[in-house]
């Protein structure tokens, strides 16, 4: 008699509490019955989906509140309640359909000649997803070792600074240039992250504080460089660097879609291999699970901290490389564009696994692409997307809440990856 594993994860999923799902009946069941049981017994993917739905509903409420016609209609709500509801429905459906059109498929494109516009939304999604996947991987790797890397913003800025400099200041032959810029950018981010790891290893300074402080330092340092003669675009008063050479730009795959997405997927495979198939990954996971036990087993914790922050910083530096060599071709003050914090939410949504991070990165890339469409097609402020994202993470991180709302069975615990991050004493 075989025992079906309920969550069917590979052995590199973050540890879930064993009793998270109560036992659903085994044996032969029809497909519809299995679906119903999945709902009733609160399987993980059902909870995730419902969390997603809850976040969208919350977003809908926010869209309605932020919509001016709905607010004016609500002033006379008791005379004409239908006005408020219809205004709200208009705003909500406009926003979400704009989101869909910007991220996945634009129905208007069916009427145009040629097939290119059909794939533009997906291409936009992928362009936005690549840096998010890389950033999410950076945070995920640090998470698995028990460290909280909030410094993706600073590390990506340093990576962007270094890659950008190689891009416009060094003039190398065609393939060599982009590779060197890539490597230098990665190293830049790695060093900035490694600094945090060094501080944690040598002095015990908690990485939450140091990473956030170094974010600001990097941000202001970039501002300084963008006013400096050797870095700023010559004959320009704007805070922008010189243009990146054509030979250093990441090759384009389709319209605006650059090969950053390939880099992101390769990085995901690399991180998967690192975490589940390599000795170093095992050490990192052991340190993350219980640092004291790992020390007793002979693993060097301090060295692990430094190593994992170097890797994490390198991945974050790749985000900056993507931004500078791929999307923008120039270094500006807003090279971060919120990617630093979005990377954290991507990692949390991805529950500590590379596969999850890729999927979460794609989802958030869709949100970003859709957010642009919201600001173009509707009057809803695009920041509503930046509220839906953390709310979604909150619902995901608290499956017990979702279970409570929908009356599902099953014991709740914290989210799998959340249990790994340590408090001040760790």
């Amino acid at each position, binding site marked *: 008699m075989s025992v079906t594993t309920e969550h069917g994860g590979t052995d590199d999923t973050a540890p879930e509490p064993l009793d998270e799902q109560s036992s659903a009946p085994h044996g032969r069941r029809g497909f519809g019955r299995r679906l119903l049981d999945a709902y009733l017994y609160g399987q993980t993917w059902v909870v995730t989906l419902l969390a997603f739905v809850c976040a969208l509903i919350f977003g809908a409420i926010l869209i309605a509140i932020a919509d001016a016609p709905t607010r004016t209609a609500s002033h006379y709500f008791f005379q004409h309640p239908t006005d408020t509801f219809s205004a709200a429905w208009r705003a909500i459906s406009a926003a979400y359909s704009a989101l869909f059109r910007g991220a996945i498929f634009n129905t208007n494109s069916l009427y145009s000649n040629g097939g290119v516009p059909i794939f533009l939304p997906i291409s936009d999604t992928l362009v936005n997803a690549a840096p998010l996947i890389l950033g999410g991987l950076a945070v995920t790797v640090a998470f698995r070792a028990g460290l909280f890397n909030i410094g993706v913003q600073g590390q990506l800025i340093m990576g962007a600074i270094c890659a950008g400099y190689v891009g416009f200041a060094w003039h190398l032959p065609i393939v060599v240039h982009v590779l060197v810029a890539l490597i230098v950018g990665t190293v830049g981010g790695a060093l900035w992250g490694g600094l945090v790891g060094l501080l944690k290893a040598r002095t015990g300074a908690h990485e*939450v504080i140091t990473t956030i402080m170094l974010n600001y330092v990097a941000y202001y340092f970039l501002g300084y460089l963008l006013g400096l003669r050797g870095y700023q675009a010559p004959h320009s008063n704007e805070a922008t660097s010189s243009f990146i050479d054509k030979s250093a730009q990441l090759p384009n795959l389709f319209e605006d879609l650059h090969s950053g997405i390939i880099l992101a997927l390769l990085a995901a495979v690399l991180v998967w291999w690192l975490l589940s198939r390599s000795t170093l990954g095992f050490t990192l996971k052991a340190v993350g699970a219980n640092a004291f036990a790992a020390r007793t087993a002979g693993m060097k914790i301090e060295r692990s901290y430094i190593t994992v922050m170097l890797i994490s910083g390198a991945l974050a530096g790749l985000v900056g490389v993507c931004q500078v060599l791929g999307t923008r071709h120039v270094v500006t003050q807003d090279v971060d564009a919120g990617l630093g914090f979005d990377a954290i939410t991507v990692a949390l949504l991805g529950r500590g696994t590379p596969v999850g991070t890729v999927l979460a990165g794609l989802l958030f890339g869709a949100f970003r692409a859709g957010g642009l469409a919201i600001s173009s097609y509707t009057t809803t402020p695009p920041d509503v997307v930046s509220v839906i994202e953390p709310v979604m993470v909150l619902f995901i991180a608290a499956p017990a809440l979702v279970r409570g709302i929908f009356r599902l069975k099953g014991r709740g615990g914290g989210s799998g990856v959340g249990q790994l991050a340590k408090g*001040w004493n760790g």
Partner: protein
Amino acid sequence: MTAVVDEEELVVTHEVIEPPVSARRRRVRGAVLVLTGLIIFFAWGLGAKNGEAAFQVSQAFDKYQIPVVRFPGGGAAMIMGSIVVLLGIGEMVIGYRRAWWRVAVGVSAVLFVVGFLCWMATGDPTIPLGLTGMMQQTIVSAIPFILGALAGIVCERSGVINVAIEGQMLLGAFAGALFASAASNLGAGVIAAMLGGALIAVLLAVFAIRYLVNQVVLGVVLNAFALGLTNLGYQSLMQSDPNSYNAGNTLSPIKIPLLGDIPVLGQAFFDVNIITYITYALVVVVDIGLFRTRWGLRTRAVGEHPRAADTVGIKVRGTRYRNVIIGGLIAGLAGAALTVGGSGAFNANISSGKGFIALAAVIFGRWSPRGAIAAALLFGFTDELQTLVTAVTPPVTIPSAFLSMAPYVVTVIAVAGFVGRVQAPAADGEPYVKG
């Protein structure tokens, strides 16, 4: 029949045995102090221009007029640098007791700042450096840090990690500006700010205590939530109609009659708005409350060993809920200090990391109000460096980017160099599950 008990036997004496600091740690700490002293000596001392440092102590309308203080700036800085170097060498060679080490660090920090001021003020004798304005600005900048640190202490002492101080401050600042404008009443704005901070605190409490979400993760997510929410509110309400929603009125300062006339400190400490006075009261209340009242004892018990506290009958979850919400109210007040009590109008992300600096102050002060206040004052001073530098032309032009960086760099150095491994409340961050 009662036995006769000797009075002296009832008195318990104990000696405090401090854990020995390792030789390596002593050398590192001493070396950091020596390095600081050398910076003071070379940068502020030898690097100063020739001439006298001029400090203006009294302003035009002050009751007591004191003449401008002048002394050789470079020489004074060199003397200060030597003192700090000697303190550092002392630590490396002899090693101080814990209390004396803290005194040494405090003295070094003060001398570093004073030396920096001497360096800034030397050279141009016609423009003395206004100490009053500097102290005023330091206090004004430090208030959000102090309040944020108090919020963090109250929350964390009961065992809930509060990384969401930034979000509480931000939402408080937004709510304060919004309601002060909409209701045309600054008091309503302050109350609304406190409730805004409490809203984030309620979310923190529910998700951390009831749903057992990892508290550091939760704090970061709540910060992102508050940022998104305030950006949304700013774009949809404030930018479209600033007069109704973001008028930007501020609280006016209230001067205490006698104390406000003291030359430098009076203007800075006793001629301030009501939020600052509330802050003074809160500092005293939290300090006494945490260590000398029943509430404080229960809070600390719940934060150190919740199971023992539960056994004795203290309601662990209720205490934690209460403390987190009180922390949220205080952090919301910090947000009010940014808008209603500060610059007036709300800007997107107006807190820009101040909540995290407050968190660093909590850690730097080892979860006690006194240490946190000292750290908050230091961070407040570095926060004001930009204004200070534009007021007085320094001997060497410092790019404004490095001045903006200063509070954050100082925080890293403070947390890494002078704090090291900290001992948080033992149950900090661990949700309590009964049974």
